[in-house]
């Protein structure tokens, strides 16, 4: 479990400094540990580091999961739980100065606009709902997919990219959970770099 925890602890400081600074080529950083330092200048982090970490994280889960029976389940569970905890922390930090949320739609809109901007520097392109607790978030150029491709391309590439969506699923679920909305999040992609997340909210 310690690998998971170091991975998620490395990710949260990246996001806090990314929210205020951009890619700084060639410079390494002091991982600004969320404001513990005396001077409050935001530390800058190279975005490539984050992307490499995300890529390696998925690979790590596959490598370290030895139980061959429920391989896929275990990897999914680990990545999603990792995302869950990071999502909770992110939301805790970034809803601090915000007025209270009115209803579930407000919470989902916050995720589509503010949270997505913080993590991926863009908003969700399309939000659909059936007004009965199901929301579909569509991102037409998912930032983490922008540099992915395979030889064959097309469908096969999309299938291979699915494990990289499990961490963002967890992010969304964690963010919702910490704001008081219990949900299930499923992601799918038909062609890179487009992807969509389906949120099913538990009836209360």
């Amino acid at each position, binding site marked *: 479990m310690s690998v*998971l*925890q*170091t991975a*998620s*602890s490395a990710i*949260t400081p990246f996001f806090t400094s990314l929210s205020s600074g951009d890619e700084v080529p060639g410079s390494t950083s002091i991982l600004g540990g*969320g*404001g*513990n330092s005396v001077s*409050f200048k935001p530390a800058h982090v190279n975005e490539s580091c984050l992307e490499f970490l995300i890529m390696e994280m998925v690979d790590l889960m596959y490598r370290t999961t030895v139980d061959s029976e429920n391989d896929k389940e275990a990897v999914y569970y680990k990545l999603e739980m990792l995302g869950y*905890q990071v999502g*909770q*922390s992110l*939301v*805790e*930090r970034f*809803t*601090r*100065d*915000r*007025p*209270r*949320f*009115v*209803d579930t739609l407000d919470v989902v809109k916050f995720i589509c606009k503010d949270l997505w901007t913080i993590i991926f520097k863009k908003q969700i392109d399309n939000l659909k709902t059936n007004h009965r607790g199901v929301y579909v978030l569509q991102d037409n150029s998912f930032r983490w997919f922008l540099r992915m491709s395979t030889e064959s391309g097309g469908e096969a590439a999309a299938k291979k990219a699915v494990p990289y969506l499990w961490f963002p699923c967890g992010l969304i679920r964690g963010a919702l*959970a*910490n*704001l*008081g909305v219990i949900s299930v999040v499923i992601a799918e992609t038909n062609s890179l770099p487009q992807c969509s997340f389906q949120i099913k909210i538990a009836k209360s």
Partner: protein
Amino acid sequence: MSDIKIQSIAIIGKQNNPLYIKNFSVFHPDLKYHYIAHTSCDVIDERVGAAGPEAADTYLGLLYAMEDLDVYGYVTNTRVKFVVVLSVTNPVKNTVMKNLFKKIHNVYINQVCNPFYNLDGKKSIVSKRFVAAIDAIGITPSDDDVSP
């Protein structure tokens, strides 16, 4: 800037479970502040319910006053409640209290970002850094502005 004396800081979780209650006073026993935190839960739920659908502030202001103690409340968007008990003689400005709650919120946020902290568990917070930070706030509430 009035000289406020913090008697107790309490942090109550989403399911109204106590996360951390610290008693700074010498006059009253710990139990009294546990009672105060418990009653504050109800008052906060009332206030939040009464505000209804309109988006209200996170700072709730003076919840209620007892003999010599004033109880102030603050709710985060993640439904975590902070309760601060003061013993004051002069009225305290809103800005001072808001700053205080902002500081407590910052300390709480840092605790949540700790990957070893399980947010969904109902246990109280035992991290040394958190405890030390809350103690520092309680003992010397300074008047300077909190930076985000």
